[in-house]
């Protein structure tokens, strides 16, 4: 027996090592610490390893950052004036846009309040520098230089100004946290296709591409459509950009579903600095409200300036035209040769109309010598299905004269242009 172990010492050791690790794998799948994704012992190993690596990573990152910032700051000064002017102009433009959108947003908020919908605003964020990675493309994990001391906790969303990035997976110390990127195979986020309003779950595949899975085939999904966070996962802020549809392809593993491949808004492969959302609130943060107020004040100023400008610009006024000997009638439409019910002045003003009363045609006095009817049967006038052509004022269908009997001169342009007060049907 002893000779067996001596003879096969090496392979037995390998088998023992592999078996131990298989048991270790099995134990990790079963156990987990509340508030953590790992077991206590595993978490300890990760803490040790990261505690060993992160000081060097931070140091190297600091040196690199210092050199880069010194270099870029020097060259940035060369074009700073031009950039500043451009940025100021852009800020003004964006403020005007913001003022226009603020009203729509308020209306949306009022409607959401009516529906008892809870809107979440980003209340506080912590900027963090990326100091390291997992080192393998099979695990999309990053390490940042912010941890428990900065209020970072697991499951906090991580974003950039371009879009969502991932979430905090583990806080490994006062100055270190592990982020899980959204393009990792084990991550997931609730998303919404902006135009088609199709909901889905976003996750990464083996090659680090983003895809919305288990989507029913829909011809409306087109490349380039924006995808936003739906907020359904209770992690990522609702409405925050996620990416754009790259292409739609059949999902061979889950027929008849399709996969929507997504190009992320944030550059996930080159992240230098990220924002960890440490707080969300249901009211607008003070700085946002202040910014909107500034925008509205600017918009008001612009409006006033436009009015002043309009006053200064030369305009054509009727009184001035008369004084200049020009006829305001120039603005009148040309007289109708054969006036009908569409002729200008033939239709009564909307204010003169009453509900349930047939609109009456105004007819020039000269054009209706027999318009005054002796009959008082006004109700009959209501039977007329359409407004009567402006030939005569009709009282009853019996008195309705044939339109062709109207004298041609009675519908002269001059008469049509200056209509006399017309009698109206009084029910």
């Amino acid at each position: 027996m002893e000779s067996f172990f001596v003879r096969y010492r090496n392979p037995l050791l390998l088998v023992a090592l592999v078996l131990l690790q298989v048991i270790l794998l099995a134990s990790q799948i079963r156990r987990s610490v509340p508030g953590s994704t790992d077991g206590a012992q595993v978490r300890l190993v990760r803490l040790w390893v990261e505690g060993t690596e992160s000081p060097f990573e931070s140091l190297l990152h600091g040196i690199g950052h210092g050199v880069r910032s010194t270099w870029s700051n020097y060259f940035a000064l060369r074009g700073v004036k031009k950039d500043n002017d451009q940025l100021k102009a852009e800020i003004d433009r964006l403020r005007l846009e913001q003022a226009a959108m603020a009203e729509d947003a308020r209306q949306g908020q009022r409607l959401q309040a009516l529906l008892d919908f809870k809107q979440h605003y980003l209340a506080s964020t912590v900027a963090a520098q990326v100091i390291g990675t997992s080192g393998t493309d099979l695990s999309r994990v990053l390490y940042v230089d912010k941890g428990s001391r900065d209020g970072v906790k697991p499951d906090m969303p991580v974003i950039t100004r371009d879009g969502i990035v991932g979430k905090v997976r583990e806080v490994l110390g006062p100055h270190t946290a592990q982020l899980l990127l959204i393009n990792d195979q084990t991550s997931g986020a609730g998303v919404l296709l902006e135009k088609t309003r199709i909901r889905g779950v976003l996750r990464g595949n083996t090659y680090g591409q983003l895809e919305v899975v288990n989507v029913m085939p829909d011809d409306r999904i087109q490349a380039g459509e924006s995808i936003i966070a739906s907020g359904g996962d209770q992690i990522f802020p609702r409405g925050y950009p996620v990416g754009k549809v790259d292409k739609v392809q059949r999902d061979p593993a889950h027929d008849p579903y399709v996969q929507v491949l997504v190009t992320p808004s944030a550059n996930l492969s080159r992240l230098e600095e990220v924002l960890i959302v440490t707080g969300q609130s249901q009211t607008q943060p003070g700085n946002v409200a202040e910014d909107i107020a500034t925008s509205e004040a600017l918009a008001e100023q612009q409006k006033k300036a436009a009015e002043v400008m309009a006053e200064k610009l030369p305009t054509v006024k009727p009184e001035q035209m008369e004084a200049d000997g020009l006829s305001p009638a120039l603005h009148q439409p040309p007289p109708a040769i054969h006036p009908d019910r569409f002729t200008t002045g033939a239709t009564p003003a909307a204010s003169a109309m009453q509900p349930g009363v047939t609109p009456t045609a105004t007819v020039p006095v000269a054009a209706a010598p027999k318009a005054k009817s002796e009959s008082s049967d006004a109700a009959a006038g209501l039977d007329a299905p359409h407004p009567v052509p402006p030939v005569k004022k009709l009282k009853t269908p019996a008195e309705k004269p044939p339109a062709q009997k109207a004298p041609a001169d009675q519908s002269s342009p001059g008469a049509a242009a200056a209509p006399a007060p017309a009698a109206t049907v009084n029910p």
Partner: protein
Amino acid sequence: MATLSYTTRRQAVEQTFPLAVMVIAPLLAIFIQAYVPKIFPRFAMLDLPLVVTLYFSLARRSQIYGAILGTSVGIWQDALTQLPLGINGICKAILGYMAASVSMRLDVDNQGTRLLLVLTLSFINSVLHLCVMRWLLNVHQDWSWGMEVLRAVLNTAVALPIFVLLDMFRQRS
């Protein structure tokens, strides 16, 4: 006249390294592997810790050493990911053992032999990784022949200069 004689072939060609090199080299490889992808994302396709594990396993010609080194390096790598500890540990333990086994039968100082060995063992690493993920963890992982062959070729390309560099530290016992 005193003569120096070796009792076995293994003793004759077994190479030793300063302890500092044997400790620092794997750690440095892991550190570079974790840091550089932040600047060059494509660097994550490589596996420098695997290359270093293979080198020391080939050079020491000890199966036990290869298995233990592979396990340690692999678990260290796993600790930097969000995946369970042991995935890389199992793969690299087996590969360290295999590399040491092969080195007892072949002349691994030859660059051509090294090239073929690293190419083959890198590919086996991908296969083992896939097996562990699918069968032990029941995690679906796509397999692309092209991608894995490319990964093996890149590891081989990086391995040759690293092997030359590490050769400079070896001491004949």
